[in-house]
């Protein structure tokens, strides 16, 4: 594609802006110019400062230094409401849909129609219908948002952003919970905005989407500007290099040469939830096994049953120890029982289900070894173990730093470190690299491979097929709760896995 020189006016200029949170500098002297009629990608690894940069424009944070100009005029955007009045509409990464409000109320929140503080429900509903119609989001305006699925909430969030009478739009990683058709829908909307002469900032680290929608790319790294380039001047490889700041070696570690060892985890006729078909699988020492499938095909229930997080209906799980002992896991003892047997879960939502965000790294890690320790025993922390783990995990933060202040990748490493410290031999990982940037992804894959090389077993559920294909020794495909295929990782293809996941659902008992 040939690159046409930009002639449209400058709509947004962030001039030499800096922002620190306490001692951490999130942005250091970044300058960015966004032009009318452009879809402008802002990208970089997690923690690069892209969200912070956009939050300056969205009125969430005020810059410590530097200047923001909108349509040539210097502005101070002190609150989100203020930014919206100035014509900047933001779809935040976190869902801000309120569960106790209806679709229409959420769409109009903060700018409800009506005079003198009175609400005009009719006008609110009509406005909502108009917006939903225009954006092609099929939702009943009177539905309570607590009843919406995450995908529907995200669509509502996008509709809300588009509904605003704005000429600058910010989308902060809007596609994470969306499926393919929904992404296509979003693309159409963005292209429409561009044609209307709006400026769209699109924050993402999904290369595919950046190259599909965007015309300009700004790359940040460690809070500094790496560069702004027209998309035509870049290739995906070049962009990754800019993001990571070094040539990325192979993302996935090589699969081991030798065949896997004896069975470590033996799952027989496990029925995770009532009505689900029984599942029998055997995981061998040294294996990374992936679970693929469409959303909601029983992946979560299976993994949670194995982890002791949810009690299965029937079946048996046997865990074979390093010394050849075989023990049946008693699923009644929950996660504590599972960890005692050396089986642990790294949950998808690590912030809510895994980590204590306010506690330091060392305490989060030490929760692992503490499991199963009697209540009255002294819980002495072993600084040596923490130090070793920190090196192994390549955690650059100090052990006393709160986990909540870490990037997604480092949080995931802390989760991993907790179970390493606990001596776990079977790791059940949901979405191993969700919310993790490119550089840290490779590190996590290496850590998982290292873990299995030492005799561990990993069972990984992921919606990211290239990840499963690159990482796993074999991939199980789940459909309707049953394992319908077992594909060696070296032979798997995205198309093949998708076909297996989709194939004729009528064969599965309804």
């Amino acid at each position, binding site marked *: 594609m040939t690159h046409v020189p930009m002639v449209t006016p400058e709509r947004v200029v962030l001039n030499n802006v800096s922002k620190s949170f306490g001692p951490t500098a999130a942005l250091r002297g970044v300058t960015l110019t966004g032009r009318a009629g452009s879809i402008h990608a802002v990208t970089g690894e997690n923690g690069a400062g892209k969200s912070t940069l956009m939050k300056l424009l969205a009125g*969430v944070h005020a810059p410590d230094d530097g200047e923001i100009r909108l349509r040539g005029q210097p502005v101070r955007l002190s*609150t*989100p*409401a203020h930014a*919206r009045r100035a014509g900047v509409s*933001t779809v*935040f990464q*976190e*869902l*801000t*849909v*309120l*569960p*106790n*409000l*209806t679709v229409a*109320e*959420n769409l109009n*929140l*903060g*700018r*409800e129609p*009506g005079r003198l*503080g*009175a*609400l005009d429900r009719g006008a609110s509903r009509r406005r909502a219908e108009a917006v939903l119609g225009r954006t092609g989001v099929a939702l009943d305006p*009177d539905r*309570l948002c*607590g*009843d919406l699925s995450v995908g529907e909430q995200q669509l509502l969030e996008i509709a*809300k952003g588009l509904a605003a009478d704005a000429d600058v739009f910010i989308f902060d990683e809007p596609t994470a919970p969306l499926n393919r058709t929904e992404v296509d829908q979003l693309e159409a909307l963005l292209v429409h905005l561009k044609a209307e002469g709006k400026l769209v900032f699109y924050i993402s680290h999904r290369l595919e989407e950046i190259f599909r929608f965007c015309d300009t790319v700004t790359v940040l790294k460690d809070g500094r500007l790496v560069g702004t380039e027209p998309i035509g001047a870049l290739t995906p490889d070049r962009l990754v290099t800019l993001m990571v700041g070094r040539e990325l070696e192979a993302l996935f570690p090589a699969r081991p040469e030798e065949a896997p060892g004896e069975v470590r985890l033996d799952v027989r006729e496990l029925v995770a939830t009532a009505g689900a078909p029984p599942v029998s699988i055997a995981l061998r020492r040294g294996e990374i096994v992936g679970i693929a499938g469409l959303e909601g095909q029983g992946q979560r229930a299976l993994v949670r049953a194995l982890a002791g997080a949810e009690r299965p209906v029937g079946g048996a799980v046997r865990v074979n120890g390093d010394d050849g002992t075989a023990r049946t896991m008693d699923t009644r003892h929950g996660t504590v029982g599972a960890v005692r047997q050396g089986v642990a879960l790294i949950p998808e939502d690590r912030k809510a289900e895994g980590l204590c965000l306010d506690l330091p790294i060392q305490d989060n890690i030490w929760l692992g070894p503490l499991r199963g320790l009697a209540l009255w025993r002294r819980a002495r922390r072993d600084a040596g173990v923490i130090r070793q783990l920190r090196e192994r995990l390549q955690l650059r933060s100090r052990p006393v730093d709160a986990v909540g202040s870490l990037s997604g990748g480092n949080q995931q490493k802390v989760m991993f470190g907790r179970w390493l410290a606990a001596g776990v031999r079977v790791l059940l990982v949901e979405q191993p690299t969700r919310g993790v940037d490119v550089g840290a992804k490779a590190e996590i894959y290496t850590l998982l491979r290292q873990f299995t090389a030492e005799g561990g077993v990993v069972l990984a559920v992921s919606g990211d097929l290239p990840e499963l294909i690159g990482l796993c020794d074999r991939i199980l495909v789940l459909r309707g709760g049953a394992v319908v295929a077992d594909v060696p990782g070296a032979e798997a293809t995205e198309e093949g896995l998708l076909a297996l996941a989709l194939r004729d659902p009528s064969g599965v008992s309804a």
Partner: protein
Amino acid sequence: MTLARTGLTRYTVGLPLLLAVLLALSAADFRQPQNLVNFGGQVAALLIASLGQMCVTLVAGIDLSVGSVMSLASCLLVSQADPVLAVAMALAMGTLVGAVNGLGVAVAGVHPLVMTLSTATFLQGLCHAVLPIPGGQVPPSLVAAATGQVAGVPLPFVWCAVAIAALGALTTRTRFGLHLFAAGSHPRSAHLNGVRVRAVTVSAYVLCGVMAATAGVFLAARVATGDPNLGASFPLESVAAVALGGVQLTGGIGSVAGVVAGTLSLGLLTNGLNVFGVSPFLRGVLTGALLLAAVSVQRRRHVGL
């Protein structure tokens, strides 16, 4: 208005109806018109205070200073001969206390329990300094306004109707009302959507302070004298009434109708036990048990978080 946000369940509405029917059937004294008028007078102050408490509860707060505000209002009332000035002073005091509570919670970040307990203690001390023992005269015109009748309708009912209508309109028909629900369910999301969460929170506490002062004026006028301990039982009773009415103490869910139902339940129970001559000590036991049972069956099912 969607049902789920109101917090109303069949238990919330059914409980006062059930109690009323049971009492009407079993106690002839209860059916006496005079008892009904008394009943109206008894619950009016609690209803007004609880409606204020509801506003604070909707933004996930709690106000334990309502009782002290009521007591102080009664002390101020007997200190003035001019009824208009007396009421104005009481309402100004309620506004001020609400503003202090609200700023403490929303701006300084003090936990609502600690903040309002502090102001409650402070004000209680002030009450005793102003009026060490019950006494004084409430201006007669105010006594008439709290106990008289208009066209055969006892005035307490009129005040209740006014309070219900005002708060009902405020919570369901105004932007501020919607923002109470928004700020209470998820302050950060509400803020990102342009709701001025701090201002809404402070306003909720101010509203609660004003309602408490009004309840204090009403109650003092009913007993026609000042009492530094007038409102002592109200902080917990108003929270109980709000909880019985299906308002979620974690914020974002509740309704005026629910608070009316909760107040009636509490009032009917007290009135009924009086009619039957049950010991006041046992009354507390029953009220506590009822509260726990009622709140257990109406925990939020619908709306997440």
